[in-house]
């Protein structure tokens, strides 16, 4: 019973981070109909940046914020410079470009930062909380993780629902041509979408790294999990990404705990196949026709 309880708690913590990363994939997909396979590598680079700052005596909070800002700028740069030319062509071209970003960034990180494991500090304590006399698998840092993601999601939701900037971004995502005819600077909105996604990705990367060793490929599995989570939720749905993230988090925790941690990715693949074969639109697919 204890094992189940512990696995559930760590599943929720991980799930929340997967949800954040899935959100950034959905953000990009809604705006430009592209899956950015390089997103994990982008997040990894900004996490290394934070690490370097921390190792140079910059306070954790400042390094954290710097990494988020770097993620924002990197996302904007990638969209504007690298992805923009292939946004309108055949799908396969965009897939290949994002894979190129993936490979290049991981290799670059290995060259600059080395392939060895590097310890990344956590913001808060990593000792399990005491509840009713026993230690549970929930740590103060996990509470920070969950809180940070919830705050970020709330900000994103507020931005989209209640601001005119959010309205313009949604319009650009749903119907580029009509948005242009309404005077929306669609190009800028797309770049902003990728920038926000970059920020979310960096957030996820930093939170995952807390207290664990990082290395250039450490985000690979996260990309897979987040991708499956996003597909599970329906690539168009923010709520779906959150639910999907939690499902993936819990699944990976249970598989890791009861079967073996090396099979977690295959478990995610199994979920992906089930979803795609049974309900390809995902759990929360919107049935609204996209063109009127």
């Amino acid at each position: 019973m204890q094992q189940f309880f512990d696995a559930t708690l760590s599943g929720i913590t991980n799930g929340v981070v997967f949800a954040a990363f899935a959100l950034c994939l959905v953000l990009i997909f809604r705006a430009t109909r592209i899956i950015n396979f390089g997103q994990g590598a982008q997040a990894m680079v900004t996490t290394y940046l934070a690490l370097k700052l921390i190792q140079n005596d910059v306070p954790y909070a400042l390094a954290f914020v710097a990494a988020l800002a770097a993620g924002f700028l990197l996302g904007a740069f990638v969209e504007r410079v690298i992805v923009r030319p292939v946004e309108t062509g055949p799908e396969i071209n965009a897939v290949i470009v994002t894979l190129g970003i993936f490979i290049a960034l991981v290799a670059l990180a290995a060259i600059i930062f080395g392939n060895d494991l590097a310890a990344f500090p956590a913001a808060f304590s990593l000792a399990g909380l005491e509840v009713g006399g026993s230690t549970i698998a929930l740590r103060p840092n996990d509470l920070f993780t969950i809180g940070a993601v919830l705050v970020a999601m709330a900000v994103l939701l507020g931005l989209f629902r209640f601001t005119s900037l959010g309205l313009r971004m949604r319009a650009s995502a749903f119907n580029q041509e009509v948005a242009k005819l309404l005077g929306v600077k669609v190009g800028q909105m797309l770049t902003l979408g990728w920038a926000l996604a970059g920020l979310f990705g960096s957030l996820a990367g930093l939170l995952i790294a807390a207290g664990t060793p990082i290395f250039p490929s450490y985000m690979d599995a996260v990309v897979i999990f987040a991708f499956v989570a996003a597909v599970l939720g329906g690539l168009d749905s923010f709520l779906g990404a959150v639910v999907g993230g939690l499902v993936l988090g819990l699944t990976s925790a249970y598989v890791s705990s009861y079967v073996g941690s090396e099979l977690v990715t295959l478990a995610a693949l199994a979920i992906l196949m089930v979803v795609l074969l049974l309900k390809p639109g995902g759990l929360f697919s919107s049935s609204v026709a996209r063109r009127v």
Partner: protein
Amino acid sequence: MSVAMNKGASDTRTPSAAPAPASGGRLRSTGLKHLLLMLAAFFGLVLLLLAVDEFRATQLASLAYYIPAVAGLTVLTGINGQVSLGHGALMAVGAYTTGVLLIRQPDLPYLLIVAIAIIVTALVGALVGVAAARLHGPYLAGATLALAVGLPGLAITFEDLLGGEPGLRIPSPTVPPWVQDLYGNITGDRLTPRVYLAYLGGALALTTLFILSNLVRSRYGRMWRAVRDDEVAAELAGIDLGRARVLAFVVSAACAGLAGALLAVVSRIAAPTGFTVVLSLSLLVAIVIGGLGSLVGAIIGSAMLVYLAPFSIARGRDLGLSDVEAANLAPLIYGVVLIVVMLVAPRGLVGTARFAFLARRAGRQGAGART
């Protein structure tokens, strides 16, 4: 993956030979041309191997295993339009099958083991293909990526059979006595296993290319292209989309299985670290550079994979990088190349050259070249 490839990354047409009276006739004459080409290439390979040292021979053996893998993938992705990021995992299947058999059944002839590895991988490919047949675009890419990241984990789960993290040490196959005698009679030298593998690998690679080039020109190739270019039209023409896609997957998986079987004995080890995502993505780079759907391009791409890495490591050392750092120069170049090629020349090297050739020819014929 159903994609409109009109402007994009694939090469649909090869320069047409002089019109033949019937397609069968043309096929036979081109087939004959290819057969002669393959035999000439093998002859050239023999000469080359006699001239070079063992290190170069090993490199040629590596080229020999990359070629079927890349060629198979270019058929799947370039001709049939399905993006697979998991062919590294399929190569792993072939390599591990070969390794396990060589260790546990050392009396079986190596070629039989290769055949078994091909069949096993083809079966796995069929399984993946059935699932993949209904997936398009990023979904297919993501699913195969998950396969690439996740499959090596099985080696750890089944540690006893598959060797876990450190992997399987694979014994080198012995040179068959008749080959040794033949070699000794012609050259007066002893044939080492490494050089033998280069000959064997070269022969198998050329055979694969021959088979694939015929398939690509046959009605299967036309069927695959039709499914890639316009699903609805293909279905209306009576093509079973699922069957066509699965077949393409099986063919490319068989090629990957062969590649894995050769890889296993050339590198003498099968371990999870040898089949990372980078391998799958390198295959993708190779087909993109050559030009999706071009078998000639597959050869060029494979050559890049084999020769760029040591080249870049040497350059890296000159620049003062450590070995580990220099080893990452090659993937860095791959990534940059992927991006640049897609932005600048989406048809790849061979595709762009071919396109320019065709356009100039059309211009000369006064038809007015059209983009």
